């Protein structure tokens, strides 16, 4: 059997959902952030596949931009987290619940 675009898209979707569920289930801020990265990459996969499928370069190019943005996010995100979690033992986001209601 040959692997059509549909499979890749399905894989992308699966990865995206895995990432999303990681976001919902994990406590550790870093891990949550990683699952977001996973979601972004799932989307990247889609872009590549569709670009390949339609022979349109935009898809391929988009991936690079997403990667760059993701990198930027990493930088800022990690900076923020360090700033916040420096004083704390864990990096559990559940400790951050003073603002609510």
């Amino acid at each position: 059997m040959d692997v059509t675009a549909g499979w890749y898209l399905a894989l992308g979707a699966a990865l995206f959902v895995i990432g999303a569920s990681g976001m919902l289930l994990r406590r550790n801020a870093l891990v949550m952030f990683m699952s977001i990265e996973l979601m972004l990459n799932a989307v990247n996969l889609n872009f590549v596949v569709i670009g390949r499928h339609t022979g349109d370069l935009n898809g391929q190019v988009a991936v690079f931009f997403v990667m760059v943005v993701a990198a930027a996010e990493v930088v800022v995100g990690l900076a923020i987290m360090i700033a916040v979690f420096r004083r704390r033992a864990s990096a559990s986001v559940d400790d951050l619940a003073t603002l609510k209601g």
Partner: protein
Amino acid sequence: MVDYIWIIIALPLTGAVFLHFFGTRMGEPAAGAVASATIGLSFLYALAAAADFFTGSGEAEAVHLFDWIPALGANAQLLWDPLSAVMTLTVTGVGTLIHVYSIGYMHGDPRYGRFFTNLNFFAASMLILVLADNFGLLFVGWELVGLSSYMLISFWFTRPSAAAAGKKAFIVNRVGDVGFLVGLMLILANFNTLTYGAVLENPARFVTAGTATAITLLLLLGAVGKSAQIPLFFWLPDAMEGPTPVSALIHAATMVTAGVYMVARTASLFELSSFSAGTVATIGAFTALFAATIALTQRDIKRVLAYSTISQLGYMFLAVGSGAYIAGIFHLVTHAFFKALLFLGSGSVIHALNDEQDMAKMGGLRKVMPVTHATMVVGWLAIIGIPPLAGFWSKDEILAIAFGEGGWFTFLWVIGLITALLTAVYMTRWMYLTFWGESRWEDGVEPHESPPIMTVPLIGLAVGGAFFGLLNTPFRGPLRPAFEHFLEPSFEGVIAMAHIPSGATPWNLATISVVAAALGALFAYRRYRGARAYEIPPFASKRTGVWRWVGAGYYVDDIIGNLLVLPGKLVAAWTAFVFDNEVIDGSVRAVGGGVRRIGGWLRPLQTGFVRSYAAVTFAGVVGLLVWFVARGVG
């Protein structure tokens, strides 16, 4: 002359307005003089204006003053016809005498000026009532006299009883007025106007007997309220809280007779419905008897007269109910004379005994108050119907006509006759307890004859009470029934005018009633001659059986109080404090609070945990996807 008929109203009205601003400053007796002058002048004017009617050359005229509420056919428009002339003359005539009397009676009252303001204002209102040419204006007068009666009854407002009595009078009258008002609704709906001419001229053109019955019964409710007939009579005795001249003018001579006048005025409607007419007569007869019985037992000199007034008004209702409109008006006039006389006399007595009203503390005043006594004797004979005094002629005409109607009316005649007997009893008793027998005055009271300013009006009224009756004797010849001829033009439209049966009947009837009166007087004479206070039954400590009932006015006030007023207040309180506060406003508050509470419930969802936020967001995503994909696929 007639075109300026409004002057009759304007005079006392200006008097009232003038006195309102300057009366207090003028003080006595100027204020009283002004008031008496204004009303006296309007009496003279009315006399002059009525001249044509005396000669029989007069024509009924409507005088248009200005538009008031044209949309209802109710304009400021006066009607000058024999009927309104008679009423005007009575009001102004008797009114003048009472005004003069008051100059003396109210001597020394701190609110002397205000009293005459109100008295003048009452006269003006009453004149509006009798001169109105449409039901709208009639209603104006109708209510204004109610107002002035309210203000005069509670004139001594510091006495709670007086204030309460005034309020009671006004509200009970209002009950009747509701009926009156609804009656006017029907009139407008059926006649498309409130003007007398269009309504009363052959109303059969517009209404069936049924409608006429409805209208007349509603009007009757109003009349019953004003004229203190069953079931709305119980305000009048309390109204005696007012100064005696007020009782004389308003609650004996004029205002209370407005009901009779109104029925007579709307005769052409009443005759369309024999039922209504019968109701009027029956109410009248029974009220007459009922009130007379209570009058037997009262010890307050004025309350006796109050119940007597109710009873006499009953006679008038009996008259107009049996179609004897002229007889009714006739009795109205004679009664105005002798009842005003009696009231003013009692006023003179009260005055002499330093505001003592309890007859148990009177007696033997004949010697000290000769003039008053003399006039009272006239009044007494007049009211119990001894010829040739006024009461005899008018009352007997009524009884005769009722008898002549036959059927049910014969029964009413019997009641009327019994009432005549009772009238003789309680009035004779009244005379004994006040003027005759021995004195039972409190210590330190030296009664004295009232000053001329008070006695002169008494004499004037006495003359009227004595001779006015002769104006309407059934004799032919020199003493032809002038009064009847005088009034007849006003009742042209009325087909079924009842007249005295011809032949010997009236004479027999007259004899019967005179005998009845004599018997009553005789009984009272034997019973109360030389009586001492403690041994006079109605006064004796132990009132037994029926006397307790009668003495308490059949407990009507208590019944009203406990069956209507009290439950009414309870219902009102429940509506206000339970239903309105809890149910209606409560539900409003509930909505407001509910919104707040829902907000409170939602807050905990904002847990502060990032992951739950993400979860909610994700749920939103899923929901949206489901929606879109469903649409995309379907």
